[in-house]
Every structure is written in C-alpha cells, then in structure tokens.
C-alpha cells in the first residue's frame, strides 16, 4: 500500500543510528522490509500477539481507534507542528466530519457512503476556513482559547439542535459498501504457541457491525494516503512557508511569505484531515452523539501530537499510538486507568521534553544543549 511507496520519499523514523542503518541498506531490501512491515500492520489485529493485544477491549476496535488518532494527529500536526498554531478545538472538525456523514446518510438523507466521505472532508475544510479567516489574526495563546471555544460551540450546537439529532445523537449510520474478497484467519495463542484459528476470521472487506478489523484496514489505507500527502506537501514550498511562519511571522512576511494565507491553508488542511477521521469514526461507530466530541478529546489529540514530537510526522504517529492505545492497555488498572494515564503523560513530559521522536530541528539543536547539560551536571556533582 501507500505506506510502502511513501517510505523512501520521507525521512525515516527514530534515531540517527536507526536511520543510518536503514539508509545503508540496498534499495531492494528496504522495499521488502517496508512491504513486510505493511503486511504486519494489516495483520496485526488478527495475530493476537500476547501482551500487545488488549484483553479488556476488542483489539480490532482498539486498533481502529488508534488509527483514527493517528489520522487526527497527522492533521493536527500540520496545524500545531508545522504552522505553529495552538489549536485546542480540533475535535470540532472531527465532529463536523462525523456529523456530515451522520446527517447525510441517516438523519436527513441517505446518500451513499462513497459520496458522503468526500463531502465530509470538504465541509470540514470549509469549517476550517470559516473558523480560521476571522480568528487567525489573533495571535498565540489567544488562538488556543478561541479554537477551544469553537470546539465547544460545535458540540453545544449539536446538543441543542434537534435537526442534528440533539443530545441523543444520530444512530443507524450505514456501513460502507464492502467487497468481500477473502477471509483472513486469526491466530490463537491460548496453547502458548500460535495456532491458526480458522473459526475466527475477518472478511476483507466486509463492513459489519461486530467485526472492527475491516474498518481498521480501511483506516490504515487512508493513513497511508494521508501520510504520502503530508510528505509531499511538507517537502515543498508550502512546508517551508509554514515553518518560516512558525519561526518568525514578521520576518516571514518580509521574505515574501503571505503568512495569513498559509496559516489558513494549514488550518483548512488540518480540518479536512480531522473531518476525514471523524467521518471514519462515525462510519464504524454507527452511532454518534455530542458526547463523543468532548473538549477532553481535543486535549488528548493535542497530547498525541506534542508527546510524539510536534513537527515530526513519525513522532506524532507514535504519540497517537501512545495516547490512543495506552488507555486501553491500562484497562487492567480498571478504575485507576485515567490516573495512570495522567501519570504517564507527566512522566513523558518530564523525561522526553522534546517529544518521543522530536523533529529534526529539535534533535540537532538539542544535541548540543544536552551535552552541555551533562557537562554542567557533572560539574555540579563534582
């Protein structure tokens, strides 16, 4: 899939040594590795790998959730990581995407899913422009509160508009049309060693209500496309303009960058991806209500981006996995899971202040600072 094709174009994840190792491999080996990796990702929900597979909740569902987080994080990364705009209301776009699907497939019309998803993307994008056009002139942290307000306005409007289903939400959102090509069996580890379990299968691609794996596959494919898009756009004039705007808005403007237009573009693209993610969420959930779009979710999205390393697409993917997956994994902690998650966020912040996979610029700049810190600490303790 696209993940594989996109790989050589972009920067590789992880540390320098890993990057070096990958870089020195022959091209053929690289491609094979990427293909293997992609296949592994696709089979992940069926491999039932012990420890990784969540016990408490359906692993396919968890993976789908993680995938929507990844998608959202990629979108939000454009806004926060590239363009440097702090957005605390991103869930608003997610909601717009989800509700566009809900309204057009169930509540007020019965359009086909294939048609509705692009509409959802466009509607979300337009809402991004509508929000951005007046507010992007507001700077810095003021933007944070304005966007936070936007997210809440969206949610409260949903709660209070019967036309949009009100607090009760929209149910019976239809499934996407499937193609039902073949069945993929799963692995069963209950004997200690993996055994192919032919009785528990997922059908490629049959979108049912109780098998979430095909939705995960769908999301994974879309992530691949978005990732490719991200790589292509970021490594162009557009990406540079975003970075320059983030670094010094006035200087960028004086170097010929129409900063407002580029910020708006970042907002619109971010919104579109958020909307797409929301559309997927609505598709899989089949039921959406304003409760699914709480402010808290915006905050988790932001946490995913920042914890992963705002500005590095691979970093934010890792961040999204952490934020989407760990709370499920922590279900063992039952009541304490939010507490543990909160602690994890704090620890991550303290021990990985630049994010899990910081962007290249931070890595470089940090390397010098770190060595300095080490030397200084050595001195202090001496």
């Amino acid at each position, binding site marked *: 899939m696209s993940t594989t094709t996109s790989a050589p174009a972009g920067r590789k994840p992880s540390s320098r040594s890993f990057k070096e190792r990958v870089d020195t491999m022959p091209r053929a080996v690289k491609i094979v590795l990427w293909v293997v990796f992609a296949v592994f990702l696709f089979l992940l929900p069926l491999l039932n790998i012990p420890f990784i597979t969540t016990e408490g909740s359906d692993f396919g569902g968890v993976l789908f959730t993680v995938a929507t987080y990844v998608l959202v994080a990629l979108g939000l990364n454009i806004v926060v990581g590239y363009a440097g705009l702090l957005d605390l209301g991103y869930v608003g776009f997610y909601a717009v995407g989800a509700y566009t699907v809900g309204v057009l497939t169930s509540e007020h019309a019965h359009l086909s899913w294939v048609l509705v998803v692009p509409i959802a993307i466009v509607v979300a994008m337009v809402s991004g422009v509508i929000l951005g056009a007046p507010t992007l002139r507001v700077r810095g942290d003021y933007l944070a509160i304005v966007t936070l307000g936007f997210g809440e306005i969206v949610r409260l409007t949903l709660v209070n508009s019967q036309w949009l289903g009100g607090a009760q939400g929209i149910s019976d959102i239809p499934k996407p049309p499937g193609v039902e090509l073949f069945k993929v069996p799963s692995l069963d580890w209950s004997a200690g060693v993996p055994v192919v379990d032919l009785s528990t299968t997922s059908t490629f691609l049959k979108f049912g209500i109780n098998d979430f794996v095909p939705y995960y596959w769908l999301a994974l494919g879309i992530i691949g496309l978005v990732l490719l898009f991200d790589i292509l756009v970021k490594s162009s004039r557009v990406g540079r303009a975003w970075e320059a705007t983030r670094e010094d808005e006035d200087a960028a403007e004086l170097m010929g960058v129409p900063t407002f237009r580029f910020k708006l573009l970042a907002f619109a693209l971010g919104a579109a991806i958020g909307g797409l993610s929301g559309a997927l969420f609505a598709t899989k959930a089949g039921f959406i209500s304003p409760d699914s779009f709480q402010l808290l979710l915006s905050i988790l999205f932001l946490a995913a981006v920042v914890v992963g390393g705002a500005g590095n697409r691979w970093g934010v993917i890792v961040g999204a996995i952490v934020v989407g997956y760990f709370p499920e994994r922590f279900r063992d902690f039952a009541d304490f899971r939010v507490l543990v998650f909160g602690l994890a966020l704090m620890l991550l912040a303290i021990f990985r202040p630049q994010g899990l996979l910081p962007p290249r610029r931070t890595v470089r700049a940090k390397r*010098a*600072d*770190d*060595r*300095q810190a080490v*030397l*200084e600490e050595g*001195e*202090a303790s001496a």
Partner: protein
Amino acid sequence: MLLEVKGLCVNYGRIEAIRDISFTVEEGEIVTLIGANGAGKTTTMKTVSGLRPVRAGSVVFNGQDITHLPSHERPVLGISQSPEGRGCFVGMTVMENLDMGTYARPDRKSKAVKDDLERVFELFPRLKERSNQAAGSMSGGEQQMLAMGRALMAKPKLLLLDEPSMGLAPKLIQQIFDIVTEINSQGTTVLLVEQNAAQALKRSHRAYILETGEIVREGTGKDLADDPAVKAAYLGGDV
C-alpha cells in the same frame, strides 16, 4: 582586589568557550577585555554575573567565593551587568526598566534612588523624554542606552559592560566612554568588553586580550594600545 577570576573554564556543550583564564580587577579600575568575535568575552562576562555555570576554576568577588552563587544573588553583592544585545524588558516602559535596575538594592525605597534616576536622565536625556515608551519600540541605540542606564540604577560596586557602544552613533560612542570614565572616577569599578578596542584601551587602566578562549596578553591600556602587534590585530581600521 574586587574581582579575582582563577583558572576559569566554561563550556557550551563540548565547545570550550573559555579555557583556564585568570584575571583580576582591582577596586576603582577600568579593566577591558578585547578579542575577536567568538573569543569568549561575553562568556566571561556572563560567568562573572552567574548566567553561565562554571566547569572549573573560581570567581572571587570582594573576598567572597561566588563561583556557584546563583546569578540573582549577585546584584545584591554589587555586581551589575549591561548585557550584550541589551536585554531590555521589551514589554515594560523605559521607566519600569530603570525601576528594575533597583530591584535588588537594599535602599530601593530611599531618596538615593531618585537621585540616581536624575543622574541617568542627565546622562541620557532621550530616556527621560521617552520614559513612558515601551522599551521594545525604542530604536536600537536607545535600547542600548536604556540597558546601560538600568545597570547604573543598581548602583553597583562592579559594573560589567558588554559592548556598550554596539549600534551607537559615533558621537554617542564618545559620550559613552566619557560616561564610563566618569562613573569610574566616582568610585565604580568597571569591567568592559569592547570591539571598539582603540577607544576602550585609551580609557582603561588595564586590559586583557582574549584569543579563542584564552588570555594571550595583558598590560596597561596604554602599553597595549601602543603595541604594534595589538595595533595590527585589533585596532586595525578602527574609527
């Protein structure tokens, strides 16, 4: 001896910005550090005022070892710095900036402060004129004046001036040096860093020359100014 720096080493990461430098400043002196770009002058100043941690060596001020004293406790002892690149509080007015200079003064509520303010305004009439303008909107040179005025408001024993003439008009450069000489004659010890080496040497009692983090020469201001090697390297085409 007011300030004694011994065997000082300071790093930026693995870069040794200064290596084993030692120098002294006697009470009542003007001492100048000169050196090329990146020689370590600013680093030395920052270390004396506590902004950079010391890797090895010691800094003794007025008989007290201050090597590891936090920077914010040094103004209380009487060390005040006008930093390179000015470091004005851009969002505060000129007046508030000058006020900040007295932050650590024990007698900050007394009349003496008012007198000092008058004095600063006398030296830099522009500051008085603009006392309610935000520092950030002042011109480069005006900010330089403000930074110096603010340092003076602290009424220090030891005044650290890092390139006070940077960005100033030629006429004002003259004035700045006059001011330095004058406050020195009134009892303030000055440690000066300057690119404008000719002027600086002329005005100072003693000077040290830094090269890539090490002191390569020292002597009286006059001796160094007359030295042909120094002339060639540092005074070159200076105005």
